[in-house]
């Protein structure tokens, strides 16, 4: 398993090289000069002297290849440069914001898992029942309501009208509820349907019939056998969504004034703060890889057949 993890970690390298190439190339493809964007954002009238000084400071007067190589060298030393906007090391700024984003992402995963497992399972076992219809409606809503709109609705009803939660900010568990629910609903809609389909499929499998003929209690069959196997595709889905979730916090962070990584990134985009954008792309790519790896490991635990297959390969 060690070799497997190592191999997977190595796969970060080409992703990293490509991401750096894209972000460095972005500066050259964009019609807007970051030095100009900086001055525009600062409401400074751009004179030639300031522009020249800023370009030198940002290293933009160097040829593309030099910029690319120097980016890679620096990133290898975990130096993501200095933010054009704040003049502070990007990595430090990102690290202070990541915990808030993680907190939000995990909060929503917990809610998504807690809601979609029972709901999807029951919807599958009790096909066409009331709960199945409810899960269908919920999934439909989750898939079709845009996050920002859902966020406003939740704030309006639960915060402004019912005064149950604060409108915005971070700090207590109450602050976490509305943004987590906003982020969780689209996940719930996917996982519920995924689990439902998987449960229905498993109920048709011979092992269920066999277990029944052996006289095993129906609850045991469902909980210990059907659910355990049926949950596997949902975990794959979860893993695939983990990276997406972290990047998906962007809108929710803006709506709920959540001081996370996503909000920081939005400002960077508007201000053409290239070092921050570069750092974000790399971290997002790494998170995608790591979350997928994490899922594979969990799947190995749940379904030992996978780990044995990996073992044969090795």
């Amino acid at each position, binding site marked *: 398993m060690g070799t497997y993890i190592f191999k997977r970690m190595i796969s970060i390298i080409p992703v990293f090289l490509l991401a750096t190439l894209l972000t460095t190339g972005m500066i050259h493809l964009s019609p807007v000069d970051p030095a100009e964007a900086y001055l525009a954002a600062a409401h400074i009238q751009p004179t030639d002297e300031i522009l020249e000084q800023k370009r030198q400071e940002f290293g933009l007067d160097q040829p593309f290849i030099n910029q690319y190589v120097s980016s890679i060298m620096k990133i290898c030393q975990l130096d993501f440069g200095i933010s054009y906007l*704040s003049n502070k090391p990007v990595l430090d700024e990102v690290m202070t914001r990541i915990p808030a984003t993680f907190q939000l992402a*995990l909060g929503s995963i917990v809610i998504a898992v807690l809601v979609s497992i029972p709901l999807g399972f029951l919807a599958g076992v009790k096909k066409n029942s009331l709960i199945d219809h409810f899960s269908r409606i919920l999934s439909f809503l989750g898939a079709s309501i845009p996050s920002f709109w859902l966020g406003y609705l939740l704030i309006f009803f639960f915060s402004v009208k019912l005064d149950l939660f604060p409108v915005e900010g971070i*700090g207590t568990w109450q602050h976490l509820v509305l943004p987590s629910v906003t982020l969780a609903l689209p996940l719930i809609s996917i996982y519920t349907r995924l689990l439902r389909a998987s449960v229905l499929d498993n109920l048709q499998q011979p092992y269920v019939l066999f277990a029944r003929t052996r006289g095993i209690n129906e609850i045991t069959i469902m909980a210990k056998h059907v659910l355990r196997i049926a949950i596997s595709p949902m975990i794959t889905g979860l893993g695939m969504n983990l990276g997406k979730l972290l990047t998906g916090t962007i809108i929710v962070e803006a709506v709920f004034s959540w001081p996370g990584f996503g909000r920081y990134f939005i*400002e960077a985009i508007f201000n053409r703060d290239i070092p921050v954008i570069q750092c974000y792309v790399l971290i997002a790519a790494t998170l995608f890889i790591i979350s997928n790896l994490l899922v594979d490991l969990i799947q190995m*635990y749940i379904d030992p057949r996978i780990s044995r297959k990996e073992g044969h390969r090795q």
Partner: protein
Amino acid sequence: MFNERNSRKTLLITVLILLLSTLLFGCTNASNVSAPKGDQDNMLTMAWPRDVGEMNPHVYNPSQLFAQSMVYEPLVSYQDGGELKPHLAESWDISDDGKEYTFHLRQDVKFSDGTSFNAEIVKKNFDTILNNVELHSWLGFISKIDQTDVIDENTFKLTLTEPYYPTIQELAVVRPVRFLGEAGFPEDGDTSKGVVEPVGTGPWILEEHKVDEYAIYKRNENYWGELPKAEKIKVKIIPDAETRVLAFEKGELDLIYGEGVISLDAFKQLESTGDYETSISEPVATRQLVINSTKEQLSDERVRQALHYGFNKEVLVEGITSGYEEKADYILPTNLPYTKGNDAKVIDYDVEKAKSLLDEAGWTLPKGKAVREKDGQSLEVDLMYDSAESIQKTMAETLQAEWGAIGVKLNIVGVELTEQIQRFKDNKFDINFFSNYGAPYDPHTFLNIVLSEGFGFNEAISAYPNKAELLKQIAEVPKTTDEEKRQQLYSSILTSIQDQGAIIPISYVKKTAIYQKDVTNFTFPANRDEHPFTGISIEQ
């Protein structure tokens, strides 16, 4: 088998612990944020879209102007109607040649750490700024400073290389010419890389700051001027406009103010409830259309005038801004210095006149067609707007219909703000939206960008027959020491630029404020970038 199962268990437990600990870490991280209720007495809470930034008086983005102005003060302050009043300088003398400025400083001023404000610290601040002169060169007088001298403890002299009349006006801006106390300077004295602590002379002291969350300012009890009535100001950072509205409705905010901080629809809706107080400022800038006369179709003055006659400005402004902006007759608001004697011709909506001007210019409407033509070429122009700005977008759409009716095909092109600026500078536009800098920068800064090459304006007025003369006059204005002559020059320049139609004024932009009923004495500062908290109070 046993080992495999064991390692799987360990793996699962590790993953679970990791997930839970991050969640718990996050929850405990900021649990001390909510202040006890008793602390909130006489504290005004407002929202701002971005973090207040580092409280450094000498740097720009991401520091917010209003916040810098709470802590740091200027020598001179800009008041209503463009009046320049003494602030940290009690008075000043200007030499006859207009090159030497001697400031007599107030003697009762202390920094928030108790140290004295004197000529030495003024010089130190100026010298630090001059060490990064390129960065600040956009502010006209900075690059003209020849020498800074301490005459005595309370007298400071500024010597310029050439006369430059807006010096006093430019000293009123928020950055970079405000004063940091000795304790705030880093060891090497270079504040461009950061300050040690925000020590200023201003009415407010930064008490607490959580990046991207909030900043709390407390009243400076030793302030030399009028003591603010509110004890504290809390600035909550709420990037989303709709969330700001919802937080205000819930009562989590006492005040929302600024330019475009909430949508006009939301403002109108909140106002209509009657539950809140609202206030609208004097004009802070003019929303203009800049017409690029280097483009063949737009090089004829009659075409530019036709466009001005060809849309109903009053209805456009009223309809799109719900009356919160005012129809503009002049290219600069008339509450700025030297703008009152503007004789420019006020142009009112007149479709027939527009059509006849176009006919006269040779752009005729062929039978059965909707777009005018001249020598086989159709009268088609592009209007560039900031796609994120809903007012510009709606105005562009309206103009498309209005000008369509007089036979001009208008293509509207929405671009990102940074790209809009870039294209304007590169002269890659037909018509563009622009708005001037406002007080205390204008009118001289506006004319300065008309004068400078590579900012869009100089190129846009290329078809003006008197362009060379205009540019000469613009260059002459700041060097003129005679007040009357200056007024004459301004009037003649502004009138000529406007009358030849390359800049069409649309509306005067205003700031809006909405506040809870217990907030009283809210007034907008005359300086566009200053804070409005001096007289504000909260009823207990």
